[in-house]
């Protein structure tokens, strides 16, 4: 395959997200402008200008009309996808990191980093149907985890919130009461910072990637460990194919040590694993730095990766990919 290279960001990529139809790709980077691209040919549709810091995460509503972004400028912003107009800004006292819209797009979970003696927190906010009525009030604030919370997503039926972060523990919270329901055990859980978390297409299980050089597949209700995928490098990003039983892990060595080694030694590949057999299927090379973000097109026929090198690489699979046997 010949990937499409998109050089819209001047700083490392942080997050990639497809909309539900799979025709738009949203990219967040440490430069201040989240960008939207056409997912088929990689053409840039627009940028969302207004943030004043690195943008860590984004989510798009099911109807592809609203975009929410979390940024290090201590805000999470709501955007009109079509025009790039800022609709609302949720202000926090510390950098916002993960954002995730609930099913129905009426609620959003936003995590904030520990900052100036403030502990990290998970905020649940209501999204008004009309942006005029939007308020910044939190429905719920969860505190407790140590360190950054790198990802927080909604569980089945919006009843739970799943969070993971620097303390390497996956937690399931009750989204109504804020009670901590489950924690990943020390024996099965990750050993180091969890960098990424992604739900399966049907929402029945999720995959976490960690700096302990592994990725783990969990049941979303019971938090039982299903599978473990082991690589040679810290995992920065994970993705799951909605079409085949494949998982993709992206990573590479620390950005600080990249210049000291040959790029071939850096393992800046997106590694494909068989989801069930936990065996490596193959690797897709190309980035000149660690992969920070991965996303699968909802049709499963293409995926994109964002790297520390500032490039988004959009890969449309060759037909033989779909017949791979291991």
């Amino acid at each position, binding site marked *: *395959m*010949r*990937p*499409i*290279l*998109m*050089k*819209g960001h001047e700083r490392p990529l942080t997050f990639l997200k497809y909309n539900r*139809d*799979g*025709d*738009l790709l949203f990219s967040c980077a440490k430069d201040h*402008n989240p*960008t939207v*691209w*056409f*997912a*088929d*040919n*990689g*053409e*840039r*549709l*627009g*940028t*969302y*200008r207004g943030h004043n810091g690195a943008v860590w995460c984004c989510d798009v509503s099911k*109807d*592809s009309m609203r975009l929410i972004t979390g940024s290090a400028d201590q805000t999470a912003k709501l955007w009109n996808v*079509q*025009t*790039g107009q800022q609709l609302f800004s949720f202000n926090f006292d510390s950098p916002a990191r993960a954002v995730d819209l609930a099913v129905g797009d009426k609620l959003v979970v936003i995590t904030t980093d520990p900052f100036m003696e403030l502990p990290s927190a998970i905020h649940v906010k209501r999204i008004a149907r009309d942006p005029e009525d939007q308020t910044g009030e939190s429905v719920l604030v969860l505190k407790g985890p140590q360190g950054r919370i790198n990802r927080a997503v909604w569980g089945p039926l919006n009843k739970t919130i799943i969070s993971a972060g620097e303390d390497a523990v996956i937690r399931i919270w009750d989204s109504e009461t804020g009670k901590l329901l489950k924690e990943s055990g020390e024996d099965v859980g990750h050993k180091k910072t969890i960098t990424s978390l992604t739900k399966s297409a049907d929402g029945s299980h999720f995959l976490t990637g960690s700096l302990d050089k592994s990725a783990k597949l969990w049941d979303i209700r019971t938090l039982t460990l299903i599978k473990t995928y082991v690589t040679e490098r810290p995992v920065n990003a994970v993705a799951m194919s909605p079409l085949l039983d494949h998982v993709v892990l992206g990573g590479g060595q620390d950005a600080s040590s990249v210049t000291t080694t040959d790029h071939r030694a850096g393992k800046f*590949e997106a590694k*494909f694993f068989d989801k069930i057999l936990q*065996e*490596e*299927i*193959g*690797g*897709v*090379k*190309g980035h000149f730095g660690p992969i920070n973000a991965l996303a699968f097109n909802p*049709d499963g*026929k*293409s995926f994109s990766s964002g790297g520390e090198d500032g490039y988004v*690489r959009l*890969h*449309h699979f*060759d037909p033989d*990919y779909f017949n*791979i*046997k*291991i």
Partner: protein
Amino acid sequence: MAKPGSEPTTGQPQKIRWGELEEDDGEDLDFLLPPKQVIGPDENGIKKVIEYRFNEDGNKIKITTTTRTRKLANARLSKRAVERRSWPKFGDAVHEDVGARLTMVSTEEIVLERPRAPGSKQEEPKAAGDANPFGKGGAVLMVCRTCGKKGDHWTSRCPYKDLAPQTEGFVDKPAIAEGTGAATGTGKSTYVPPSQRAGASGSERSGTDMRRRNDENSVRVTNLSEDTREPDLLELFRPFGAVSRVYVAVDQKTGISRGFGFVNFVNREDAQRAINKLNGYGYDNLILRVEWATPRTN
């Protein structure tokens, strides 16, 4: 100033002074050129763009660019997605100049690199399952052909290389030189006539079997000096028992010994004793190597 003249190349109606033409760098001359033409894209996605411009010598040149637009994804788009295709650009994308080339198709063909060739799967876990410290998943299957050790070293690096019997092609050559059917027992790579293959029916083989019995007592002597001739070899081996044949390979062109030969004993035991005694024996400043001519199975 130069006189106004007619304009042969452009045929434009307005009067243009030659002097003026030469002074500006041709940048303002674009209006003299025929307009850009775009043909296609046709059903094969082939698009032709015909442009005209001046090169540095001031000559008008026609540039035809033919491009094929490949359909990258033939995904079925929803109505909303089709609508979104025509959304106007916003943010920084509005002022995007054509030369920015933010989106490029990789010039490099990227393949999904398999950790091992498809189909080699059966072998791989076996190698990894061995008591092999290097046998991580995807490790190469490293088997030494000399000593049979797995995952330790390649054949060429084998520490036991000198100890192991040499079975490579070297054996075959004298066998052919002798004109016998000895090739049966040697290396797998050589061609073996069907009649001499292991599975061939035994009826017509009695003759060759006779020969083979002789061959079985054949001893190969290597590292002979060039001066060694057959009588010398006979003298050397006769003390061990009755010798039926002595042969020294001689280069047909130069007439010089090729440094190896064969001795056939009548009795197998004699041959074995000769091997035991003479292998490593210093003969004419060289250390002899004496071994069975055909690699033995037992």
